[in-house]
């Protein structure tokens, strides 16, 4: 197994993931006898790879969600996908999603566990997203797990299937706020390009001004 623990230098493998929460207003029908009366929303916090066919279990031992302390048993540990916790509540708070990797025995090297902070959203926050009648709120964020200099074992696991294949189309037009597609990246890139060109223009502008000022100064000194 020693060879599997060797890190492959100058290489990184990224796995796109989604995390966030869905929230929906509690309807009287959905209320259970156990739910506190002041709870207004039902929400689900989750962590998953973008592609459903990607299995991260060889890498991830478990995912823990640290809820607000007022919840009973605030640290929920999920050992199998789907990594998600569904609860009811009335307020927004920050949930700490902690990803635990398998130990060195499986991955060759003990990868550090790390945390993602997610602010729970129960109320509509994005004015661009149309508010829905049933009070559905989706706060889904895109990110990538980047395995820098992966061990040969991790490399082997991650190259079994292409994990970075973002779809070009939404699986459902309604899920605009829940999914990220390749075109989003392109849009973002285009936007960034625009910003960069803007800044460049400004730099050019400022440089010209600077030159003018320099000449003015020279003229003054002479």
């Amino acid at each position, binding site marked *: 197994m020693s*060879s*599997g623990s*060797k*890190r*492959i230098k*100058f*290489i*990184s*493998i*990224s*796995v*796109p993931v989604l995390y966030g929460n869905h929230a929906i207003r509690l309807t009287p029908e959905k209320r259970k006898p156990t739910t506190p009366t002041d709870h207004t929303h039902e929400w689900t916090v989750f962590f998953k790879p973008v592609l459903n066919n990607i299995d991260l279990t060889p890498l991830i031992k478990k995912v823990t969600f640290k809820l607000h302390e007022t919840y009973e048993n605030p640290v929920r540990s999920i050992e199998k996908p789907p990594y998600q916790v569904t609860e009811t509540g009335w307020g927004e708070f920050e949930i700490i999603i902690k990803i635990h*990797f398998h130990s060195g025995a499986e991955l060759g*090297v003990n*990868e*550090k566990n*790390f945390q*993602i902070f997610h602010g729970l959203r129960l109320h509509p926050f994005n004015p661009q997203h149309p508010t829905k009648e049933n009070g559905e709120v989706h706060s889904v964020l*895109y*990110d*990538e*797990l*980047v*395995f*820098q*200099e992966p061990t*040969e*074992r991790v*490399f*082997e696991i*991650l*190259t079994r299937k*292409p*994990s*970075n*294949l973002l779809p070009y189309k939404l699986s459902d037009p309604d899920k605009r706020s829940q999914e*990220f597609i390749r075109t*989003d*990246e392109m849009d*973002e*890139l285009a936007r*960034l*390009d625009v*910003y*960069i060109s*803007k*800044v*460049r223009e*400004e*730099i050019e502008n*400022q*440089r010209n*001004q*600077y030159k003018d*000022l*320099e000449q*003015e*100064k020279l003229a*003054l*000194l002479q």
Partner: protein
Amino acid sequence: MSANDILDVLNIQRDESKQPAKKKQKTAVEIQRQSGMARELYNLIGPNTPPVNLPFVGANSSKASMKMKVSPWTKRAFKPNKLNKDSDEVTLHHWVKGSKELLEQEEADKPYFFEKFNVKIDFPELVNEETYDKYMVEIKEREKRLREEKKRREKEKKEQEAIEKSKREQEAKEKEKKEKEAKEAKESKEKESVSASGESQEIEESAIKLESETSNKESESKESKTDDNISKDKEGDSSKESNQVATEAKEREANEEEPEEEPEDWTYEETQYLFELTRDFELKWPLIYDRYNYPTKRDVEDLKEQFYRICIKTLEDQPNSNPSLIESLSAYSKPRELERKQYLENLLKRTPAEIAEEESLVIEARRFELAAKKMLIERSHLLTLLDSPQTTQSVQQYQSSQGLTNLYNNLMIIDKNQKKRQLQQQQKAIASGNQDPVPPPIPIAASSSFKKDRSFQTHLQQYLAGLLKQSQNVNPAIKQESNAIQQLLAKRLTQKEEEAYGLHFHGSEKLNPGVILRSTQKLPGLQQKQSVLKSVNSVLQELDIPTAGGTSWKPVMPTRKTMTKYDELIRSVVALLDLKKGKDKLEAEIRLIKSQRGLQ
């Protein structure tokens, strides 16, 4: 066992007066004598063993010699100087082996045995007084002639110089006067010689530049010696004397010659005395000098000189003299000898500091030599380097085995592509009848993105292939682990397909091993102070770039591409900020200058 023994064992008495027993005894004694062993030992070993040591005859022979007659020694008289009839007859005695009669017989015709060791150095006898006087006159004349010649030459030089000087400038009048005075008076020899040295130097400068003036003491002394040789032996022209030292030597010479004339006239008696001493002490000059007890005070050099010149004269007058001997004798030069002594004396009198300085100088010189050698070598190296073709790129990237495989792969690809292109061109040329212009070749990097050429390897694949080879080199047994890489390579992915796997080759970029979130990736542009980042955000807001109000705005979809773009954006904003800062500064300066002008 003998019958006797048996009888003995059986206790049978026998008549002892019988003959066989006697015989036995006799033989035993004989053997014993022969072997020369001690009787006890012989009894132990028995007669049959070979003798351990050789029979020792000494005891017997010494006994024999003792009986011999003692050889006779005689104390007899002898005369040490038998051959030399003139010497007074001293009679000495010593012991000689042999009888008196025998010796006396021999004595008659044989010379004294040790006489041959009484050797005398062969040098010419002192001539009689008349010839001596003649010789002395001749010698004097010759020396005088030499001196005059020298003076004449000096004069000539001076005149020459004078002419030159008068030619050159009128200002030198004073000097000329002095020289004239010196010439006329001839009192101050020193002055003369000093000026002479000046002349010789001038001549040297003008005429002979061959002989180098080395500052080295030793070489100086050598040169001066050789110069002296020339001047003395051959009376060669003094214009040859190049060195100042040589002229100095000459000066000394002149100084010494002068007083020699008056007080140190060698009388015949003194010369005789000198020759006697020389004979007595067999040319051992220190001894001669030590024992020289004559009213006039002489140096060793004076003694030598006188002795040699008289010898030369006598030898010259002899019909069958050895010319080489005369030459070697005439090679002696008193001033040179004096000089040599002085040098030696100086050498002896050196202070430790001087010695140290000399040594350090020698070391320094050696160091210079070494440095020069080194420089020459380096220069030759440089020349060879300049001759060799220069590389356009650094070789470093090809120094690892991985780099080498990369290079190899690249070369293969280029080769393949070229072949393909050539084929295509040929086909095209055939199809269109050599009319179509050649399409510009597509660079490899560009073609790789959309190529269908499966033989091409991306950077990543090249790298991985190299890695695989390396690991296999290290341990060929591990196939299982490298399978993943092998499988991936077998797929022959395009760059886009690689992206689908989320694979990225960072080149030589430094990575922190471990798992990170893309959004928290440490980008170079984000390695700024918090305040800088804040102002970056404000700049972005100024430029109508949505920052979502926060200070840590990031792309909504942090992928590798977006993050690099984002990084680029941030960095350009930072650059803009720097520029703005500079501009503000400049503006402030201008304001300051303006206000100053206003005040003025």
